[in-house]
């Protein structure tokens, strides 16, 4: 194997923003190929790639959390359980009589447990892929490619962060909150949902001692005006050294506006239809606003976590 071919995801995001320069995130230092021409124009020899593999996992638990969401726990060999908050896997869904998904489906890491060799996912049963995925029984095997993409990063200097999620986005933020807690960083978690039955992962945020604010459509508390107040409260209370969001365009825009106003760095985890998950097909681009110009980036390799400030509405 030529040593020159070894890749790693791009580093950017809240840490980079906060530090003003590429910071050492969990995936190792330095810019990846996409930013390489700017950072170091002629550096063909790159540091070793974080390990990615297509492994066979065994379903050890697979339950309904409510009418729409399922929780899937797999036992899988390394490197899968080494995944970091914000990274994702490309899952090979089974075929059923009705649903025969052709492509894999990307799913955010919900929890990784290297000690027990487990990875967990939380998903909403939506279409062909997730209906088929929902059919898989305990004891069955499935392929998962990962861990993929760039996860969340927390600025070195942060003492307190705010996470704001909605729907399945809450699942993506739960491991971030735990990563923060493990570093002794305080977490304010604003959890938005249609109804009380649709709020997931509260217990995980509670377990790390997060300040939890559940906001619902049913009682109107999920209204942007109220969420804005909660964000400003956190900032005013000195508990908003970084912002993180996932799962809602409207909430992303809100958090972005307040982040800009109050100069709080932030990250957002985005989605886009994918095919390869590996940066090869260029299916998964989203536009970002960088210094006034619009730039397309691949969600799978340059994301799925991006600087909040650069995100554009979808």
């Amino acid at each position: 194997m030529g040593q020159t071919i070894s890749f790693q995801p791009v580093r950017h995001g809240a840490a980079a923003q906060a530090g003003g320069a590429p910071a050492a995130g969990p995936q190792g230092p330095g810019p990846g190929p996409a930013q390489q021409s700017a950072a170091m124009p002629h550096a063909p020899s790159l540091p070793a790639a974080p390990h990615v593999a297509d492994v066979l996992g065994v379903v050890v638990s697979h339950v309904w959390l409510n009418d729409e969401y399922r929780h899937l726990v797999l036992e899988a060999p390394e490197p899968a359980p080494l995944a970091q908050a914000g990274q994702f896997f490309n899952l090979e869904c089974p075929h059923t009589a009705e649903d025969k998904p052709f492509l894999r489906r990307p799913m955010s890491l919900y929890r990784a447990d290297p000690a027990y060799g487990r990875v967990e996912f939380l998903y909403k049963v939506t279409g062909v892929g997730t209906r088929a995925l929902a059919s898989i029984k305990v004891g069955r095997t499935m392929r998962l490619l990962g861990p993929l993409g760039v996860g969340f990063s927390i600025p070195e200097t942060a003492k307190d962060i705010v996470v704001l999620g909605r729907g399945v986005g809450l699942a993506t933020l739960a491991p971030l909150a735990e990563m923060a807690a493990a570093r002794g960083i305080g977490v304010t978690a604003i959890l938005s949902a249609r109804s009380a039955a649709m709020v997931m992962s509260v217990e995980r945020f509670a377990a790390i001692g997060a300040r939890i604010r559940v906001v619902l459509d049913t009682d109107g508390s999920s209204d942007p005006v109220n969420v804005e107040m909660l964000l400003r409260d956190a900032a005013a209370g000195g508990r908003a050294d970084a912002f993180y969001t996932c799962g809602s365009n409207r909430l992303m825009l809100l958090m972005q506006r307040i982040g800009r106003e109050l100069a709080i760095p932030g990250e957002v985890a985005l989605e886009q239809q994918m095919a390869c998950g590996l940066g090869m097909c260029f299916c998964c681009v989203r536009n970002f606003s960088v210094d006034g110009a619009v730039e397309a980036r691949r969600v799978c390799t340059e994301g799925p976590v991006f600087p909040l400030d650069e995100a554009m509405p979808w």
Partner: protein
Amino acid sequence: MVDAATLHGAGPGPALTIDQTVRIGRLTLRNAVMPASGTFAETLAGIVPFEQLGALVTKTVTPQLRGGNPTPRVCEVGQGMLNAIGIPSKGLDHFVAETLPLYRGVPTPLVASVSALSADAFADAVRRLDVPGVAAIEANISCPNIEEDGKAFAMDPRPTALVVEKMRRATSLPLWVKLSPNTGDVASVARAAEAAGADALVVANTILAMSIDIETFRPRLGNVMGGLSGPAVKPIVVRMVYQCARAVDIPVIGCGGIATAADAVEYMLAGAAAVQVGTATFVRPTAMLTVIDGLVDYCRRKGFARVADLTGAIHDADLTVDTHEAAS
């Protein structure tokens, strides 16, 4: 042509060492399997050891920077997918300066795929790609020719001949020409490319297709139409490989819906000298390795000493094709 069923139908032979090498013009490849352009990048290195592949084919690069199409750029349709990526490209200079050096030290021939909007631009691009590290050039001529009102070069023999001739004069590197399946007469296009100096043909690119979301009434691709790839296209492209292989003497590389060794064998029997694996890599990143191993197993089981002996080994001598059937 070897009478394969007679000589080789005898069931599992001894644990022969199978010669996996194939020749594509003056290049000898380690084996018959390589990625299809646009479905491969350096990022696969951690999963597929590049030194085990027959060749590496890079994503099509254009002379200048290009942005690509709006999203959604992909959707699945039955056992296949549509894509409308639109060849985003950082341009040739970036490719030569940034991408090529990454493959330094990889002991596998690198094939640079290139596209341009006129015959002269193609020739110029090919000239600029004639640099160390490029083992062959794959010209993706399924793109619109601005001198022909946007009609793709590969739709007709005449513009194909013109663009291939100009490229031929611009480089002494092996020149592979990738044909489009969106033509009524692929064999004539193949002959034109051969006559104009192509060293090999890649058959084929994606088939123009479309899908509509009946809940939203929206096309499922941002570009409305896109290219169909994956298992769904295999019978159509196998037919084109068969037609091209009978029409030309240069090697034909089969590409379309190959996911298993059985698929690769089918293409080789139809006349392919090598194969490219595209969409299958998205579904199973290690698909190319499975195809490589499976070709060896097949040869062993059927008693072929060389993978290259599969090329054109179809038994069709007693059959004739009734063109009336093109139609039903």
